[in-house]
């Protein structure tokens, strides 16, 4: 099955596409700087087409990868490729996906065409800028695939950090908010600080690998996760390393109290950027907790779990409460994500199959639903003459743009986990899983569902119902391009909500493996309960 290097193809292709994008029309754009909107067969304007086609080819590759993936053994890494990369450091280029990784790869690959479509008319009509923006997005896509597919801690770390650079430019260079530079720097510094602390732990971890007595060197593939799993670690060292890893991931998956960069970023970046950033990139944080923290540092994970659960619950509530108070729609969505990430982390640290598979599933769902929210909010904002992001500047949009209103409502409802939508399934799984081990946490967190209803519905009400806002009277409804974007996302939410089974097949087994890694057993067989909860 693994004869074709699907994952490598998925990594390399976006880079090719990025190059093609950046070169398209480069020759013509040059002499009349910025005046490339004039067209021509290969003008800068057609770069977006190239990018779109490129991303669609990527989707096709993804389909191929899915075809090659065997669901029955979703708990083990498949499509693996391993090449020595830097033997001297024990690093190898090792990729492979289990069910969770594959879903997250799918999420990133799937969202990119939508982001590209959504960005079709962004960047003030400057095609050269747009071209660069799209190329950066594609580069980021390549990194995201690697990071989700990495089976080597070093590779993971390298890409984890390297991703910051394109992300940083996406926020700071192509953002729309006035404070985009500030936001970009904040994002970068937060992430780098976490990353560097993690680096220390990575180094320390590497040195835990036993030395080959024959050569006096560490093995050339020392950084493979399977080699690092199950090392006999000194408890203190393990806890320190765990803390370092966790800090980096907690910053990435914005978790209270290191989430503060997030609202600034969402407020200032373009919705497309936010989509990629929050919906995909930040999943690296939770993904890392799941696939690195748990198996590599099982003891420390168990040791830290109570504290983390507390923080997760705080995140859930805190994000939700602050979201209610926001006046800026993008900032608001940012805060909802803090809340949702709290759920994911809660699910992971339940150490139950149900909770972890719920969290895994939620990573996917949250990506889709929040992505939908961001992109639709972006469409809404694009209809405002001043491109205001203030909720108060809108009103009655439902009347002038009914399709927009409808899809926005669906996306919003998915954020509050309305039954029938994908998020509901995962949230309920997390709650059930958590309840088995941390009932108190669930009790405290449940009100967040209510809060979610408040912020979603309140926002919808203020923006889409009532009197039509003075400035948005002439707004048009979604055009075909936008409808495509919205339609795909809403459809995904609904389909996954109604038929979660196939998707859950991908996460169930890895969740079991994770629980096993941590050294816990499921408190009670809860898989039956899951089937029952699905309405």
């Amino acid at each position: 099955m693994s004869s074709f290097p699907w994952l490598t193809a998925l990594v390399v292709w976006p880079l090719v596409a990025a190059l093609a994008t950046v070169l398209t029309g480069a020759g013509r754009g040059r002499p009349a700087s910025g005046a490339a909107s004039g067209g021509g067969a290969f003008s800068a304007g057609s770069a977006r087409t190239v990018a779109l086609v490129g991303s669609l080819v990527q989707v096709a590759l993804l389909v191929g990868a899915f075809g090659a993936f065997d669901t029955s053994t979703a708990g083990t890494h498949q499509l693996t490729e391993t090449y020595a990369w830097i033997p001297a450091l024990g690093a190898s280029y090792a990729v492979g996906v289990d069910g969770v990784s594959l879903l997250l790869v799918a999420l990133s690959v799937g969202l990119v065409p939508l982001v590209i479509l959504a960005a079709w008319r962004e960047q003030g009509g400057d095609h050269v800028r747009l071209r660069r923006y799209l190329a950066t997005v594609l580069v980021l896509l390549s990194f995201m695939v690697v990071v989700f597919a990495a089976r080597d801690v070093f590779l993971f770390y390298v890409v984890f950090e390297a991703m910051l650079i394109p992300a940083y430019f996406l926020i700071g260079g192509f953002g729309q908010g006035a404070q985009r530079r500030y936001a970009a720097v904040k994002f970068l510094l937060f992430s780098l600080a976490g990353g560097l602390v993690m680096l220390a732990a990575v180094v320390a971890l590497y040195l835990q690998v036993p030395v080959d007595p024959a050569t006096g060197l560490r093995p050339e593939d020392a950084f493979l996760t399977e080699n690092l799993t199950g090392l006999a670690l000194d408890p203190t060292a393990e806890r320190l390393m765990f803390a370092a890893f966790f800090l980096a991931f907690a910053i990435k998956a914005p978790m209270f109290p290191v989430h503060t960069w997030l609202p600034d970023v969402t407020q200032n970046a373009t919705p497309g950027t936010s989509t990629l950033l929050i919906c995909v990139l930040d999943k690296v944080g939770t993904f890392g907790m799941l696939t690195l923290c748990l198996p590599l540092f099982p003891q420390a994970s168990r040791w830290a779990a109570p504290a983390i659960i507390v923080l997760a619950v705080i995140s859930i509530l805190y994000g939700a409460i602050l979201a209610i108070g926001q006046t800026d729609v993008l900032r608001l969505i940012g805060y909802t994500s803090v809340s949702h990430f709290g759920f994911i982390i809660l699910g992971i640290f339940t150490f139950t199959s149900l909770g972890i598979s719920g969290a895994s599933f939620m990573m996917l769902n949250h990506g889709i639903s929040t992505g939908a929210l961001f992109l639709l909010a972006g469409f809404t904002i694009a209809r405002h003459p001043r491109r205001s992001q203030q909720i108060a500047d809108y009103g009655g949009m439902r009347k002038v743009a009914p399709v927009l209103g409808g899809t926005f409502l669906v996306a919003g409802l998915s954020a509050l986990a309305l039954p029938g939508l994908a998020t509901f399934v995962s949230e309920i799984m997390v709650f059930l899983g958590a309840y088995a081990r941390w009932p108190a946490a669930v009790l405290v967190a449940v009100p967040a569902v209510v809060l979610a209803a408040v912020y979603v519905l309140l926002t919808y009400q203020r923006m889409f119902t009532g009197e039509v806002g003075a400035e948005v009277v002439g707004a048009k409804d979604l055009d075909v391009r936008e409808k495509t974007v919205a339609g795909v996302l809403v459809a995904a939410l609904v389909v996954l909500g109604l038929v979660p089974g196939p998707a859950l097949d991908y996460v169930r087994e890895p969740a079991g493996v994770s629980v096993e890694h941590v050294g816990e057993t499921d408190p009670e067989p809860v898989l039956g309960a899951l089937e029952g909860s699905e309405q």
Partner: protein
Amino acid sequence: MEFEAPVIDWAVLSPVLVVLAAGVVGVLIEAFVPDRVRRAVQVVLTLAALVGSVVAVALLWDRVATDGFAFVVNGTFLLTPFTLGIQAVVAVLAILGVLVIADRTRTGDDAFAPTAAAVPGTTYEDAAREAGLQQTEIYPLVLFATGGMLLFPATDNLIVLFIALEVLSLPLYVLCATARRRRLLSQEAAFKYFLLGSFASAIMLFGIALVYGFAGTVSLETALFRMAQPGGPILELMPALVIAGVLLITVGLLFKIGAAPFHMWTPDVYQGAPTPITGFMAACVKAAAVGALVRVVFTLSLGLDEELRRNLEVGLWAVAILTMLVGTVAGAVQTDVKRLLAYSSIAHAGFLTVAFVGFSETGAQAVLFYVLAYGLATLGAFAVVTLVREQDADGVVLGEATHLSHWAGLARRAPWLAAAFSLFLLSMAGIPLTAGFIAKFGVFSAAVVAGAWPLAVVGVLASAVAVFFYVRLIVLMVLTPPAEDAEGAQDAEVATEGQDAPDLAADGAGSSAAAGRTLAPARTLRRAPVVVLSSRGFATVAIVICAVGVVLLGVVPQLALDWAGQAASFRPVQP
């Protein structure tokens, strides 16, 4: 009296000899070649000599790697694989440095004064400039300095160490004073460098004298051997003598690598010296000095007893921590790009020190890789600085625009240049997929291996702070609009950009760039204070090589790591 003529293995000396001989020939060229072709001849000769040195190193490689060492006359000149590695790094970096030095931008000027001895601002100087004179003596000087650098780590003889130090320093003192622009600043830099440099070398020399007094020999290894074996010709005052001596020698070496608390000269000198020289200095001198320091310190660690060794280690810890802190904290508040890079180089000295506190081969390997990675990034960065210039209202290109505010929006004027510069900064910051990351990884690994994990943690934290100021500069270049844009969105950017940065991406933030364009001709032609010059090739080549090197070392470092690993071996103390 019998005298036995020593047998000299010239092949072992060849990497150094090639360079020094070329320097001598360069002086003769200055004397005899007509001035029209002098520059061309000098550049060719200099590059050829440095390439020759690299080739010599390559030819020696197998032999030294097999034998573990090669020496001339009792270790007066001593090659170990590590030394050879440092020599290779120095020679390669020197080639790139010379490329930058030799570059003349489209203004036709290089960075050096037409007559360095002229009093600034006199008619004499103006006449010299109008006559198109050039100070081609810089090439032999660079060669001599490089020769000293090649010799510096490659000796076991302390007095040769001292002489190498002077051979590398003296030409640099002079080179520092030769800037074309800001002559006073340049001379002042040379002056400070000279006074502090001589002071440090005097201190080091006294240390050497003390070691000699203790051991009756200036061979470091023999001296330490004597120390470990009581009963030799040891003076009764000792071993305080040798400890003081070793301390003073180390201070001298630390001064050269710019480690705190002996770093004070670095920012001033880096700022004042002609930028290509600064780049050359920052990259090559650091490599050579670290090489020497590692050699000395490692040899010491083999000879000292447990307690002294621990003391030495503690001292290095303190130096490393202090250096990293000073470099990063002070760097964070700089407003001049050259000073900023200078503080960055101080911080890097700290990271380098972290690498060898454990006296392990891993540390030596890390050092080798680090100096290469750091050298490439630094040289490239300074090369970029040479191309960013001020200009006056008439479009006459002035000196370098080193104030940070001038760098705002550079990415719009020269996207490629800004990209390269960002790449170098990212490498210095240690972002993955650049050379700097692998380098830092190696350094911190070495520290942790040696049990110095607190040092590694401090290093990581310092890196985090350092990232701040690198990123600040990137933000400024890439994200901040140029000063004139900030004043009014439709400022006449185009008038300036026309020739220099055709690939300008107009700022689409809200206002229509097209409007600005149409307005421009109507306004009085206001020129931006900053202009990016196109190089006449050399600097571009250097920048490209540096950038490619930084990326390659970051993405596929295996070759370099293998090489460094092979080189990082030390000859044990001879019994």
